[in-house]
Each structure stands twice: as structure tokens, then as C-alpha cells.
């Protein structure tokens, strides 16, 4: 199984490069400002602001529950797509039975999709 992981080595190298670069971009300005003596944090400078004026409210505003419905519909169709990948790759080996199984699966989810559509769950208003 080492061959599978070896194929991902370039991605690991890229990750290392990305990590090194991002660390440098964060740490170097801090080090330079400390070294040159321009580092002078005070309460007003560290306070959060939006467009230059003090923030009106807490950043954790309460969400509408409609976002949750959209997210859960997204998860379900995401999983459906995820199931389609191994099916498409192994379609030659699993034959008609496997094809029919996926069609039934898709029909189940299409039923849910029709229900969501008719209920107006996809409409934002």
C-alpha cells in the first residue's frame, strides 16, 4: 500500500512549502516590528473594528434556521454524489444488479428532492 501514499508525496511537499511560507509571512513582520522598535500595541489598536468604526454588536449573531435546512440538503446530495463515484468506476464489474441498485438509490433521493421542491424548501422567499 506504500505505492498509493507515494503518489501523494508531491502534495505533502506542497503542504510543507505552504506551511513554511505562511509561517514566514506571519512571523517575519512580527519579528521585524519587534526588532525595529515599532511594535506598540495598545487597547484601541487591538480592538476589532468594521470599516473603521467600532463594532456595533457581537460577531456571533444568531442565524436563521433556514441556513440549517440548506446545509442538510447540501449534505444529502453531497453524499449522493460521493456514492456515485465508486459506482461509476466499478460499473463494469457489478453488472446489471449494481446498476439497478444505484437507480433505486437515486429514485429514493429523487423522491425526497420532489418533496423538498413541492414543499418550497428550496425557495428562499
Amino acid at each position, binding site marked *: 500500500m506504500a505505492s498509493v501514499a507515494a503518489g501523494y508525496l508531491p502534495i505533502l511537499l506542497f503542504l510543507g512549502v505552504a506551511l513554511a511560507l505562511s509561517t514566514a509571512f506571519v512571523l517575519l513582520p512580527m519579528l521585524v516590528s519587534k526588532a525595529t522598535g515599532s511594535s506598540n500595541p495598545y487597547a484601541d489598536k487591538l480592538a476589532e473594528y468594521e470599516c473603521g468604526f467600532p463594532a456595533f454588536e457581537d460577531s456571533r449573531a444568531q442565524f436563521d434556521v433556514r441556513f*440549517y435546512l440548506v446545509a442538510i440538503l447540501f449534505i444529502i446530495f453531497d453524499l449522493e454524489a460521493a456514492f456515485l463515484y465508486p459506482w461509476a468506476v466499478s460499473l463494469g464489474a*457489478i453488472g446489471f444488479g449494481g446498476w439497478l441498485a444505484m437507480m*433505486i438509490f437515486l429514485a429514493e*433521493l429523487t423522491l425526497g428532492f420532489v418533496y423538498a421542491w413541492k414543499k418550497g424548501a428550496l425557495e428562499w422567499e
Partner: protein
Amino acid sequence: MIQTIAFYLFATLVIASAALTIVARNPVHSVLWLILSFFNAAGLMVLVGAEFIAMLLVIVYVGAVAVLFLFVVMMLDIDFAELRAGYAQYLPFGVLLVLVLSAEMIFAVSAWSAGGIALSASVAPVPEGVPNIEALGTLIYTRYLFIFEGAGLVLLVAMIGAIVLTHRTRSGTRPQNVSQQVKRRPQDAVRKIDQPVGQGMDL
């Protein structure tokens, strides 16, 4: 060599970020640590050779489940200081849970080291020379077909349940009605008049 280093890197980061998920005071930070943990678990899966599972972890868990967690955290209107005030009250229950879990772990590890658990006999053999995703596909859609269809039903129930629980029609909103817009003809909306000079206009 590289594989060993990568394994220890990913494993350490999984455990560290999982610990930080629990310890973090801000629940939003907790979810972000959880996402880091998912990414490192995906790295571990790649090291094992289960690349499809790794991609699934990134797509489904990071892309969808973590977003759902974030939404839930943002939706709940909980005073977290008040929630933490019950620490002493829930302490006995928490200690009980810890005892049960650690006992389970000790039993599992000692049973494993005592031998006799032939795990490789109960799982399907890994075919040689076949990509991971293809081997998975041939198993899911033949041997585990009914479980797969059951998963589809569970997803259907989840979808309908979410709609029933969270969807409500709002009155007073004016949604777009496409067919009505398309059906509207110029003669319904436009009027041509020959306006006489010097007289007021009649609307």
C-alpha cells in the same frame, strides 16, 4: 522514512487538535479545531492506502458536516458562561462516562493483546492490483447492497425530517412567480393614449 515521519506528524496533529476541540472555550474555535482534525485523519487514511475514504473525509466531513456544525453553533442562542456554571453539577455523570469509556478501552486493548481476535477473517480481503475505490464499489453494490439501499432510505428520512422540522411558510412574503411573469402580455400592462393638449392626464 517519509511515511513514518508523515504518520507521526498526522497522528500527533489529530490527537492534539481533537484535544483542543474539547478544551477550546469558544465553540466556533472548537469546530475549527475539529476541521483540522478531519484533515489530518484524511492524511492518515492516505497513508493507509484508503484514498477514497480520505477524499470522502475531506468532501463530506470538512465540506458539509463541519459547516453544519458551524451553523448549529451559530444558531443556538446559548449563554456559554451559564452553561459552564453547571460544571460541578454534571461532574459525577462525566466521571461515570470517563470510567465506562476507559474500562471499554482497557478491555479492548487487553483482548487484542491476548490474541484470538482474527480481524482479518471477518473483513473482506483486499484484492491486489485493484484501486481502492474500485474494490469498494464492487463490494458496496453487490455484497452490501441492502445496507446501501438502507443508507439511501436514512438519507431520505433525514431530508424529510429536516424539512418538516425547520420549514415553515412565511406569510407576507412576495416570492417570484415565474409563470405569472411569463404569462403577462403587453396589453395587460401598457396603455396607449392620445393625450389632448391643455388637459390633465387621466391615470
